[in-house]
């Protein structure tokens, strides 16, 4: 709390707050009464503005998400608008065409909400749990790595390469997440790896 605020809080209590208003003092008190009566049926709604990072690419532009409804008061919030964050030093409020369409990305009916599996030979996806998904990914990676890992080249020099699997990681992460992702993936020997943390 700054000095400005505490000073004004005192003054409101000591001076203006107790008595009249500017409208009353100038002789427009009846207008104020009528306006107060006219406005009473109206309700207030709350919009939240929340900072976030665009998930598309490694530029990591700042965005502001507008949502209606107040989570703080236990209401549901629904995103109504997304725009570039003018205070963000990277993009200063601008967004590329993909970023400009972020709301449709969030609201998309085809958006993936949980892990889905299409088994070999099947034509449909089925929903599976995160445990099942991660177990399956780990199993398949282990099998492939056991089969295709190159520990040394033809001259016998150790190279420890695993070239049959690629790994694409997300961009909207912290430095720490990006660092850990890099360490984990490179430690397995994966060569074909994009962490989108290039910028």
């Amino acid at each position, binding site marked *: *709390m*700054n000095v*400005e*605020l505490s*000073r*004004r*809080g005192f*003054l*409101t209590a*000591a*001076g*203006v*707050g*107790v*008595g*009249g*208003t*500017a*409208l*009353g*003092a*100038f*002789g*427009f008190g009846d*207008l*104020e009464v*009528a*306006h*107060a009566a*006219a*406005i009473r049926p*109206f*309700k*207030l*709604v*709350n*919009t*939240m*503005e*929340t*900072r976030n990072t665009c998930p598309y690419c490694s530029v990591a532009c700042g965005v*502001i998400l507008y949502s209606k409804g*107040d989570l*703080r008061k236990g209401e549901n919030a629904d995103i109504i608008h997304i*725009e*570039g*964050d*003018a*205070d963000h030093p990277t*993009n*200063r*409020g*601008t967004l590329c065409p993909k970023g400009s369409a972020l709301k449709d990305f969030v609201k998309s009916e085809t958006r993936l909400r949980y892990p889905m599996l299409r088994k070999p030979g099947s034509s449909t996806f089925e929903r599976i749990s995160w445990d099942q998904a991660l177990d399956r990914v780990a199993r398949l990676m282990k099998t492939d790595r056991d089969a295709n890992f190159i520990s040394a080249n033809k001259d016998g020099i150790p190279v420890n390469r695993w070239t049959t699997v690629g790994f694409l990681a997300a961009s909207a992460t912290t430095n720490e997440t990006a660092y850990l992702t890099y360490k984990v993936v490179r430690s397995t020997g994966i060569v074909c790896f994009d962490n989108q943390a290039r910028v």
Partner: protein
Amino acid sequence: MTSSLQPDPSAIGRIPAPPFARLPDPEVMFAQRAKRLLALAEVSDLGAYLSFVAALAQAQHDIQSQLPEPSLPDEDALARAREFAMPPIDRSGLSLDPAVARTLDLMFDAAASIDKPKEAEVALGVVRQAGPGTVTAMIRNVLSEAIPADAIAEHAYVAGGLQAHVARLAARLDGEKLVRVSDGVCPACGGPPVSSLIVGWMGAEGARYCCCSLCGTFWNVVRIKCVLCSSTKGVGYREIDGGPGTIKAECCDTCHGYVKVFYQQKDVSLDPVADDIASLGLDLLLRDSEYRRGSFNPFLLGF
């Protein structure tokens, strides 16, 4: 930016950083405000009051041509203010000097010809009759935002004159040399904000600027941050249901104060002072809430 005839490829080559402050142009500001107030008066049930404030704003504009050149603080004082991040216009040093006295006299004379209710007439009579000691005390009250509840109208007239005077002072400062004092304090005169705007200015699209209640200087403040207590936690935006979404109250759960935000990039006609008064309904609806009005507007005292 557009007024320069010199080619400026940097404007298209990269994204410019928004300027920290924009100084007022008293030759234009009050006339525009009067025009906006009159336009709002057409459609508002506060019409009579808005027309009255419009006439006062027009008076603030009309007296400009007759006012003496205001004297800025000397170079040493300006440099010292900048070194210690203080506003260059010293509020506590403002007194009833000849320039201020002349401004107030002209303001009161201009206000005399405005059509107004009896209460406003009486209040104007009081300030016109007041001796220098009383007027000095009223100037002090206005500058410290401590307005006695029984003399609101009198102080609003004085505040109107001071706005005209300090806007002229601020207009003569070097905007490039202003430094941030605090989020909720004008970098030119140290005044509290009247409201804040999300602007659509070229080079600052979507940035937020607070508007000073005294001198009209705009200064940049990060969005989604309470301008009263600088908190970024629990800032919500309340508006009247069914409205166009251009006028909201930025409510802070930390200090329980609110300052209105006008989304000027959606509606360029929004004026930081005129629309603050015209959106009184929002203040009335918020009056019974946990939030209190934290901005200062001499024509909206008591809310």
